[in-house]
């Protein structure tokens, strides 16, 4: 299993979507850090390097990051189909479940890797503003960007890192859903599109208030404003992850190649 996992992690860096995503995650924070019209549009000035990660995350969690995660995780399966290597691997004495489990673990790790990289590029983009005490907020705490007086760097670090961790965690089920759809459709593009379509439908379901707290899309804003107690949100996301992973394994176990 460890050989399999090492192999799958090695493949991650070869994916076109990972390389493309890295470029996007470098450029995106720069747009915020150096946008000349930010005051005209949003009515505030950036005063700290800690605010760039917040703006980058706030503006990308709704669509950009789910898109990048879905495409990459679907491509984890799609690349094997494109290269024709899926049967080759399955002919070795690894079980189908082991192989898919390795893929699912990589798909689960990818949002954390991507957001760690995004945090680094955002901090680098905001370095111009410095990371000392500042008047205002990071944008990721209860007080938003305006804050409540002077914010100390240690508090800012805590808010930013926790928010990025929570955001990454809430993106994990999206990656696993993309793997599930890619396994069903045996196609990377189809897997990513089906995932995005599902998310769009879920976003529309907010017109049913009773189901809103349970929707996956509702949890995407938990990093800044959890709809329910945080423990409940964490558990709900774990349930989504388990359900998508189990469904992917069940489908994959009975698939003809």
């Amino acid at each position, binding site marked *: 299993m460890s*050989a*399999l996992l090492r*192999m799958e992690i090695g*493949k991650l860096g*070869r994916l076109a979507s990972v390389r493309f995503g890295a470029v996007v995650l470098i450029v995106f924070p720069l747009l915020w850090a150096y946008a000349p019209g930010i005051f005209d549009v949003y009515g505030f000035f950036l005063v700290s390097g800690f605010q760039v990660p917040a703006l980058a995350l706030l503006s990308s969690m709704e669509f950009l990051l789910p898109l990048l995660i879905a495409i990459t995780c679907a491509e984890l399966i799609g690349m094997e189909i494109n*290269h*024709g*290597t899926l*049967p*080759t*691997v*399955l*002919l*070795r*004495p*690894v*079980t189908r479940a082991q192989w898919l489990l390795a893929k699912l673990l990589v798909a689960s790790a990818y949002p954390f890797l991507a957001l760690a990289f995004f945090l680094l590029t955002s901090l680098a983009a905001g370095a111009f503003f410095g990371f000392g005490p500042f008047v205002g907020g990071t944008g990721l705490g209860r007080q938003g960007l305006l804050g409540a007086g002077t914010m100390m760097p240690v508090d800012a670090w805590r808010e930013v890192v926790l928010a990025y961790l929570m955001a990454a965690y809430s993106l994990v089920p999206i990656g696993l859903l993309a793997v599930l759809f890619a396994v069903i459709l045996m196609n990377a593009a189809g897997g990513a599109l089906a995932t995005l379509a599902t998310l769009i439908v879920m976003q529309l379901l907010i017109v049913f208030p009773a189901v809103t707290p349970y929707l996956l899309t509702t949890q995407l804003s938990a990093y800044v404003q959890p709809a329910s107690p945080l423990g409940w949100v964490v558990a709900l996301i774990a349930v989504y992850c388990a359900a998508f992973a189990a469904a992917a394994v069940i489908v994959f176990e*009975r698939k*003809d*190649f």
Partner: protein
Amino acid sequence: MQAAIETKALTKRYGTRPIIRDLTFAVHPGEVYALVGPNGAGKTTVIRLVSGLAFPSSGTVRMLGQDPHETPSVRRRLGAVVEAPAAFYPYLTGRSNLLLHARLAGGVATSRVREVLDQVELGHAADRKVGVYSLGMRQRLGVAAALLTRPEVLILDEPASGMDPLSLHLVHRVLRDAAASGTAVLLSTHHLDEVVAYCSHVGILEEGVLIDEVDLRDRGARVRVLVDDVQNARLTLAAQPWVREVFVRGRDVVFTLEKPAAIDRVAGCLATAGVALRELGDDSFDLRSYYRERVEAQRARRTLDDEIPGASA
């Protein structure tokens, strides 16, 4: 002897459409079994069912006595190439791809990678990325990957696809050697002429049905005579204890000798019976013609059945 590969009443349907119907055959250690048939006959499906990549709709598959789905560990004893051309990660070198296979298989020494690369004459290209390999080179790398674990069962889908004559000869030699060392080889191919040279059995598939199996092992002892009186010659030869399987083919009488040395007795025996012998020689089996006859006959039978149900029976 236990069969290395055995299928019984193997059937595969996609929806209601049967792709493989009631397929029963066996490959024993040391045998090379070639599946031949027109495009769409179901050869690749059989290869995938037998190797455990696809699930049968009904019937059974046994590899070394075990179900490859229920006991995936049996694949430790399997070497297989089920894609034509053989599939590898194009961004890795030939050597790295094989090392990756070795890691997945477990227990394969690094020196074995070098050994199989040399065996298929790819040592010189081992450190080039597979993306720049020609079709024939990829196929040879596929054979090398299949041989990596010294398998007891080799399954190859179109191993000769895209190969030049020299590579073709090389792969045939490698497969023959593997069979000589006791490996059971199952392959699908369109190269009917080469099949006769190194396969022990041929199964002819048509529309998912195994319409004939030919045992090529005793073809070398088959003799053909051209005579003036065909029926007399047939009866005379059939009465000899050192002759078996006598039949008439056109103006020839074809028969199999119990022992090759008995060929010296043929002329004398026929002369005693008053049959004038004009020609005597080995009956080289023409698989291509035989295959065409069998496939066409099967198609004619099917057409007849379509028009008048049960007519061919």
